[in-house]
């Protein structure tokens, strides 16, 4: 996937200006940056929820092959977990019975066997996140966009959901573009990390390659010799960026 010279504006000064980035097939790529740097807008532009002012996005994929996971689960509260997962399958013409079977097998795969009849209200935060994941993955996306999807989960649940996701993504060869605030998460998950500058008029500042081999165990990834130095570099670059716009915080 290629993003070329993308500028996004909501009326005033553009939040994001002239952003270009490449995501190779099967790679896990993260976008990190200060709040308001247009990371979410970039994802929204890629999937077509936000019309860019200029520039273009080339995914080389059909619209249905791109999935997006938001920070909120946004499950339909009046549908059971199984019905929620089957929803997108139905939109793409799968018959209901078949869609429900497929949904069940995805729930199963994400560790939610037996929870298909529950309404979202009667699921925990981690379970809802897994349902939302199943909902997106059931459509077999080639490219998965994620906008801080795990921010609302507590640390232990988060670690487990994320590890399951990584295993799945590695096995299925899905390309991922993740937006996150969490440098730790960015480095343990990604092959490539992009750093954005402070908005408005945010730009892509830096690109870092993460040479930790796959398949990855997220706990062990942190003990890889490349992790520490990369983390420090990313951290000091990000701090400098935040401090440049906000001297009080740098002091």
């Amino acid at each position, binding site marked *: 996937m290629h993003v070329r010279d993308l500028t996004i504006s909501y009326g005033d000064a553009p939040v994001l200006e002239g952003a270009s980035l490449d995501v190779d097939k099967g790679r896990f790529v993260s976008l990190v940056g200060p709040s308001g740097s247009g990371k979410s807008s970039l994802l929204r532009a890629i999937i077509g929820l936000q019309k860019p002012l200029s520039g273009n996005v080339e995914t080389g994929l059909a619209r249905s092959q791109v*999935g997006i996971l938001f920070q*909120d689960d946004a499950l*339909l509260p009046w549908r059971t977990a199984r019905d929620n997962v089957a929803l997108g399958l139905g*939109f*793409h013409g799968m018959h209901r019975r078949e869609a429900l079977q497929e949904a069940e097998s995805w729930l199963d795969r994400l560790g939610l066997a037996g929870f298909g009849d529950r309404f979202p*209200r009667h699921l925990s935060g981690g379970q809802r996140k897994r349902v939302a994941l199943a909902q997106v993955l059931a459509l077999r996306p080639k490219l998965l966009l994620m906008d801080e999807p795990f921010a609302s989960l507590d640390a232990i649940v988060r670690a487990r959901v994320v590890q399951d996701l990584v295993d799945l993504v590695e096995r299925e060869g899905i390309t991922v573009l993740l937006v996150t605030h969490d440098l730790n998460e960015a480095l343990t998950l990604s092959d490539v990390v992009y750093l954005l500058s402070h908005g408005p008029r945010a730009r892509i500042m830096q690109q870092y390659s993460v040479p930790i081999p796959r398949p990855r165990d997220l706990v062990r990834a942190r003990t890889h010799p490349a992790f520490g130095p990369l983390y420090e570099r990313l951290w000091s670059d990000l701090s400098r960026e935040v401090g440049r716009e906000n001297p009080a915080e740098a002091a």
Partner: protein
Amino acid sequence: MALDPKRAWIRQWLTFVVVLLLWEAAGRANLLNPLFAPSPSEIALALFGLFSSGNIWTHLEATFTAALGGLVLGIAAGIALGVVAALVPLIAELLQPVMTLLNAIPRVILAPLFAIWLGIGIASKVALAFILVAVLMFFTVFTGIRQVDRKLVERVVTLGGDRWALVRHVYLPSVAASIMGHLKVAVGFAFTGAIVGEFVAASRGLGYLISFAQSTYNAALMLALVMLIMAVVLLIFAASGRLEKYLMRWN
């Protein structure tokens, strides 16, 4: 002393019975003027009389027909107008001030006007029940649609849902939820409209009977009718409560 909330109904019924007994005793001891405050047994007798003579049925029928007619028409019109206003900005612009005004006034003051326009038959009662319910439903649906969760809309769109999918999976269920939340109020409004309409000018109906009881200074009959109306509305509340519980089982 700590009150067990599960036993509240026992205390409530006990108190109710005690009050009735005290009231009855005061009546028998000639402490109350039977003309103004008939004892419970006299009210029960009046109630019994209504049913044993068979007179009551025609009045019940008239009130029910007017109330349910106004309720159904009012809900239908309220939903239709609410949907149109939510979808077409021009309609919203034109309708909103009228509805706001109608909402601000006590709409029962229209009863004499409807009696002049539509006569003392059932039409004027249906019209009053209708206008009470329709305005309520208009606002319920109008705000219901406007407050539909944007995240759910985006979720369905990114899963590949078209406009029809949005209506079916997001808009209809959200609006149904807000209608359900106001159904009991609408039932109450419908009976208020029918009875007040009959009160003003009619030859049949519970409202007519009440005004008859007033003109003949028959407090026992009037209280009997109040009890009857309460029983009727409670019955309908129970029915709509069950419907609500079934349709909102996800909540």
